C-alpha cells in the first residue's frame, strides 16, 4: 500500500505479510510513516494505492467487521479527562456494543490487570502519564481483540513503566493475541518482537526476525569510539582492516566479527594510550544505520 497527502509521500509501496500470533514491530524514526501505516491497517486512512486485508477481510469493504476484532492504542492518549478510568472503559466498551454485564466484568478485569486499581475512580486528568498510557491500552483491550495495534506504546514513559508494559505485551502475545506495534526504540523492537520491519521515509528498508536481520547485514560485534577522521584513516589503512564503519560526527562505529581485534588494532596504533571506547553486540540500530545508507563501505 501507498499513502500520499497531496504531493507528500507518507507511505510508499509498503508490502507486509504479518503472521498471526506474533509480535511485529514497525520500527522507524519520526515521520517514517508508522502511524499512517497503522491507520491504513485498521481502516482510518484509505490507501492511495493498494489494499489491506486483515483476518482475510478487505478493510475498506468491511471496516466494522475488522475493527470489531481488533484494538488500537493511538500514539496520543485519547481519554475523557473529566471521567474516571472505570467510566472511560465503560464508554469505550459501548462503542463495541458489549452487553452491560459483560462490560462491567471486563472493566474490573482490565483495571486489575493494568494496575489501575488505586486510581480507578479518580478523574483521568489527575493521573500521571504512566497511568494514562496504561488506561489508553486498557481501552484498546476492552473487546478482547485478536489483533492489537500499539502506536508507540512506551514513548515518553520512565523505565519502570516501560518494563511493566513490556511484561503485559508479552503476556498478551503468550495468550495468543497478535500484536503490531510501532516504535523508534530499537531496543523495544529487538527485545519484544518476533519480527521487525524497518521504515525510513515511508519505505520498508528491510524486514525479518531481529537476530536474522542483524546476522544477514553486519558482523557480530561493534566498537564505538570518538575520533577524528585522521585517526580513522591511520587505524584502518592496513590490509585486512574492518571495512564496515559508520561515522556520525565525532562518533565512529566499527563492525567486526571480533571486537577485540578492532580494539587491539586501535590500541597498537595509539601507542598504548587508553582511549575510551565501547564494545558491544551489533543491534537493530546498526541495521537501521546500515539500511538507510549512512554506512561507510570502503573497498578493502
Amino acid at each position, binding site marked *: 500500500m501507498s499513502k500520499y497527502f497531496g504531493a507528500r509521500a507518507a507511505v510508499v509501496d509498503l508490502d507486509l505479510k504479518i503472521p498471526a500470533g506474533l509480535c511485529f514491530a514497525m520500527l522507524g524514526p519520526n515521520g517514517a510513516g508508522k502511524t499512517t501505516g497503522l491507520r491504513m491497517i*485498521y*481502516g*482510518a486512512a484509505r490507501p492511495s494505492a493498494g489494499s489491506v486485508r486483515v483476518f482475510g477481510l478487505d478493510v475498506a469493504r468491511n471496516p466494522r467487521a475488522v475493527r470489531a476484532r481488533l484494538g488500537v492504542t*493511538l500514539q496520543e492518549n485519547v481519554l*475523557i479527562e*473529566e471521567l474516571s478510568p472505570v467510566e472511560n472503559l465503560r*464508554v469505550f466498551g459501548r*462503542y463495541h*456494543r458489549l452487553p452491560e454485564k459483560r462490560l462491567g466484568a471486563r472493566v474490573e478485569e482490565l483495571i486489575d490487570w493494568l494496575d489501575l486499581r488505586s486510581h480507578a475512580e479518580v478523574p483521568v486528568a489527575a493521573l500521571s502519564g504512566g497511568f494514562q498510557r496504561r488506561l489508553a491500552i486498557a*481501552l484498546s483491550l476492552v473487546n478482547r481483540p485478536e489483533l492489537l495495534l500499539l502506536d508507540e506504546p512506551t514513548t515518553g514513559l520512565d523505565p519502570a513503566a516501560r518494563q511493566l508494559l513490556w511484561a503485559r505485551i508479552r503476556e498478551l502475545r503468550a495468550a495468543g493475541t497478535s500484536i503490531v506495534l510501532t516504535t523508534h526504540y530499537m531496543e523495544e523492537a529487538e527485545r519484544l518482537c518476533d519480527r521487525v520491519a524497518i521504515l525510513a521515509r515511508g519505505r520498508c528498508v528491510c524486514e525479518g526476525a531481529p537476530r536474522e536481520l542483524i546476522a544477514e547485514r553486519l558482523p557480530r560485534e561493534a566498537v564505538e569510539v570518538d575520533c577524528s577522521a585522521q585517526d580513522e584513516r591511520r587505524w584502518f589503512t592496513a590490509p585486512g582492516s574492518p571495512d564496515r564503519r559508520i561515522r556520525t560526527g565525532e562518533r565512529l562505529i566499527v563492525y567486526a566479527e571480533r571486537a577485540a581485534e578492532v580494539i587491539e588494532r586501535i590500541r597498537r596504533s595509539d601507542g598504548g594510550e587508553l582511549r575510551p571506547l565501547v564494545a558491544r553486540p551489533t543491534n537493530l540500530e546498526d541495521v537501521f544505520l546500515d539500511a538507510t545508507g549512512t554506512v561507510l563501505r570502503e573497498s578493502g
Partner: protein
Amino acid sequence: MNLSLPYAWSVWRRNATLYLRTWQWNLLPNFFEPVLYLTAIGIGLGAYVSRMDGQTYIEFLAPALVCVAAMNGASFEVTYNMFVRLNMRRTYDAMLTTPLSPDDVLAGEMLWALTRVCLYGGGFFAVAALFGLAPLPRSLAAVPLIPLTGLLFAAIGIVFTLHIVNIDLYSFYFTLFVTPLFLFSGVFFPLEERLPAGWLWLAEALPLLHPVRLARAIFTGRLGWIAVWDLAYMALVTPLLLGWALRKARRRLIA
C-alpha cells in the same frame, strides 16, 4: 449510507455521560439567556411599546425566543464543543478504532445536539407557559418546531465545523451569522413592516425567519398559507445540509 443506530447511540451516551458530570456549568448559562432577553426586553423595553397586533410586546416575543433557544442550543453544541472533539481531543479518531463508522459518529452527534436543543428549547417553552405567555393547549403545536429548528441549525453548524481548521473562526460564525439572524429574523419586530418591499424576498433566505414565523402563527392561532412555505423551506434545506455534512464527515474522519 453506513449507519447503525445502536452504534450512534453509543456516541450519544458518551456525550451524555460527560454532560451529566458537568451539567451545572453547561445547562444554566444557555437556559438563562433567553429568559433574560424575555424579562429585560419583554418587560423592560416592552413597557414603552404599544400593543402589537393586539398582543403585548412580551407575548409577541415569547414564541420567537423559543426558536432562538433551539438555535442557540444547537449552535453551541456543534461549534466549540464539536470542534474540540474533532480537532483537539481527537475523540473521533478514538471512535474510529472501534466498529463505529463516520456515519454513526455524525448521527450520534446530531442526536446529542438535538437532545440539548430539546432541553433548552423545552425549558424555555415551559418557562413561557408558566408565565402565561404560551396559550395552552394551542401553543403545544409549536413544540415540534424546537427539534426541527435545532436540526436545521445543527446541520449548518456541523458543516461549518467540518470545514474550518481554526477555532477562532467561530467568532465570525456567531457575530456575522448567528447574532444577525437573531436580530433580523422577525424576533424583535415584524420584518414586513420595517423592510422595504423590494428586500423582503431576500429575508426569506434567512433560516431563523421560518421557524419564528411558524411559532408565532401557532401561538396566535393565525396559521396562514405562508406556513406551508416555511415548513417546505425547513424540510428542503435541512436534508441538503445534512447530506453535505455527511459527505464532509466521511472525508474528514477517514483521511
